[in-house]
């Protein structure tokens, strides 16, 4: 069966001006991401992984190059048109959970439906919470949850609009090891069971190597691209645990 290409980036560049100096945060990246893949973006700080994920998320515009999401070119679109592209294709999880403290878990999860003008139903919210194993916490406030639970609520919030691609920028950055592993296990399950595409950045190599594909960035360019095997993932986890 032919793989469906969801993201196509060609010659993607993002340059910033810092005084008279031009910083090449991303300097010519070619990348294809297909449906049902889990792709990790690895690299040290300043390697360009957050810049790349911001471009892939349509949250930022490239200085040069082309980008298509689900076959739709996004370069040069207005902010509201980019919002439409995001609505139809992307879900987001960030290092900080950004749950609204005065809304309960169910209301936080249902928030994207308000902006996408979709009917909000309790069943739909519960279904999203069930995907992350928190259906029994629907009425709780975020302050009553652990960090791992809050991140899972954030994932449910991303999933409720049934996105094709889940973008996760350092989703385990604020979590301990056990919770970090649980989040990556959840991503793996969603990819395997729902055919979701996940693009994730992380500093944690052992977690990153749980993906189908690992892209390592350095100085704004793709340094290497790997498809980890079970053995290489286990070796990376063992190396990381020492």
């Amino acid at each position: 069966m032919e793989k469906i290409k969801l993201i196509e980036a060609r010659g993607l560049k993002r340059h910033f001006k810092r005084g008279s100096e031009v910083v090449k945060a991303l300097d010519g990246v070619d990348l294809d991401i297909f449906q049902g893949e889990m792709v990790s973006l690895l690299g040290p700080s300043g390697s360009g992984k957050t810049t790349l994920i911001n471009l892939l998320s349509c949250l930022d515009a490239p200085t040069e190059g082309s980008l298509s999401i689900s076959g739709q070119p996004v370069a040069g679109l207005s902010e509201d048109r980019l919002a439409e592209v995001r609505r139809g294709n992307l879900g987001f999880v960030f290092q900080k959970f950004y749950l609204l403290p005065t809304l309960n878990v169910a209301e936080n999860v249902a928030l994207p439906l308000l902006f996408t003008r979709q009917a909000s139903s309790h069943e739909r919210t519960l279904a999203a919470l069930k995907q992350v194993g928190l259906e029994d916490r629907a009425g709780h406030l975020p302050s009553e949850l652990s960090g791992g639970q809050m991140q899972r609520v954030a994932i449910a919030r991303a999933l409720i609009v049934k996105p094709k691609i889940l973008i996760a920028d350092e989703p385990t950055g604020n979590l301990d090891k056990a919770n970090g592993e649980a989040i990556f296990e959840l991503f793996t399950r969603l990819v395997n069971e729902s055919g979701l595409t996940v693009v994730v950045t992380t500093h944690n190599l052992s977690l990153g190597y749980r993906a189908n594909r690992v892209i390592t960035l350095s100085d704004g360019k793709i340094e290497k691209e790997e498809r980890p095997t079970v053995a290489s993932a286990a070796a990376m986890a063992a190396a990381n645990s020492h």
Partner: protein
Amino acid sequence: MRFLTLALKNLLRRKVRSALTVLGVALAVAVAVSLMGFRTGYKQALSESIDRLGFQVMVMAKGCPYEAATMMLKGGTGLLYVPDSIYAQVGKDKDIDSITPIFIGLAMKETSGLREDAGSSFTIMAGIEQESFATMKPWLKFKTGQGFYGGHWFAPESEDEVVMGYEAATYEQRKVGDKIFLPITPNGAKEAVPHTFKIVGILDRAGSQDDGTVFLPFKTAQKIFNRPNQLTIVGVKLKTFNRDNLREFTNRWISLPEVQVVDMGQVKDTITGLLDSAQTMIAAVAVIAVLVALIGVVNTILMSVYERTGEIGIMKAIGAYRGDIFTLIWFETLFVCALGGALGCGFALVGTKLVEAGIKSLINLGVSGSVVRITPDILACSFGGAILVGFFAGLYPAWRAASMRPVEAIREGIG
């Protein structure tokens, strides 16, 4: 969930700050409502007080007609007298429906022992011809009930009987049958002469200066004030009161020496006109209060926007349009102002009596009855004004929030 619910819940996040901002708006609205209520109420009370004088025209000694009218409304010491023969002369006028002579004098207020300020003020004494005076003011009734039974007008020739207005009697704590001691300085004398009068009646509240007056027979007043054949005012009611009739009447009697004819309608218009000018200043105070509240609202909402930069970024990331963010922040501002407006109207309604008592304790407004009247129009106007403030106060914070680029907002939120 709807935008309104979300906006309300956002405001509940910082309860104290939101409450203080609402309170700021509420106080500004309460000030505006009270001032507008005072403007409306005072004009109406003034108008009613002038109408309650009973006569449309005053014939009196030459001088400032507005000072004369003010003296009639709130009393005063600058009394002028004219020969009482003009009463008979003017009384022959063909256009007159009714006419009454009034002699006004001032007695030292009796110190009751309970009121320390009593000795420092005057009691207004009005010498009247009971029959014509009562005809001119048919609404004057004697108070009944315990301590007030048997109230009646004095005999025309009586020299020691008085009828007290409601407030004068209340102030002096007198009942029907009591005595009242009033030192009076006769014309030409240096020392006050003590007089003791018997109270034969106490009038019910009339809502005019009559409430604070002590009435005695016209001739007796002339005698004890040592001004025989003099009077202060001739009150006139015309058969047909219109501009032409009044002009003709004035022209007929203006030629009398030392006499002026004062049209109470004109006095009313002039005083309310002056009041309008003075109230422009009052309105400026209300505008400043509203501006301060507006700045407070802008500051609060702007702070809230900056604190939620990351959240606004994530809302945009998950699909919110610029318009959605604008609407959300704008609703928050409107909520604050609407709630403040409603509370302010409530404060003003509840506090009306306090405000009125405060104003009356500071200055003698020269009118009886309520001077603060808060009408539904005033409440609607003030509440609408609060919403309008919210409309404008929300524009800048909402625009700032809507203009945030999601990537920068999320980055700042993480930082």
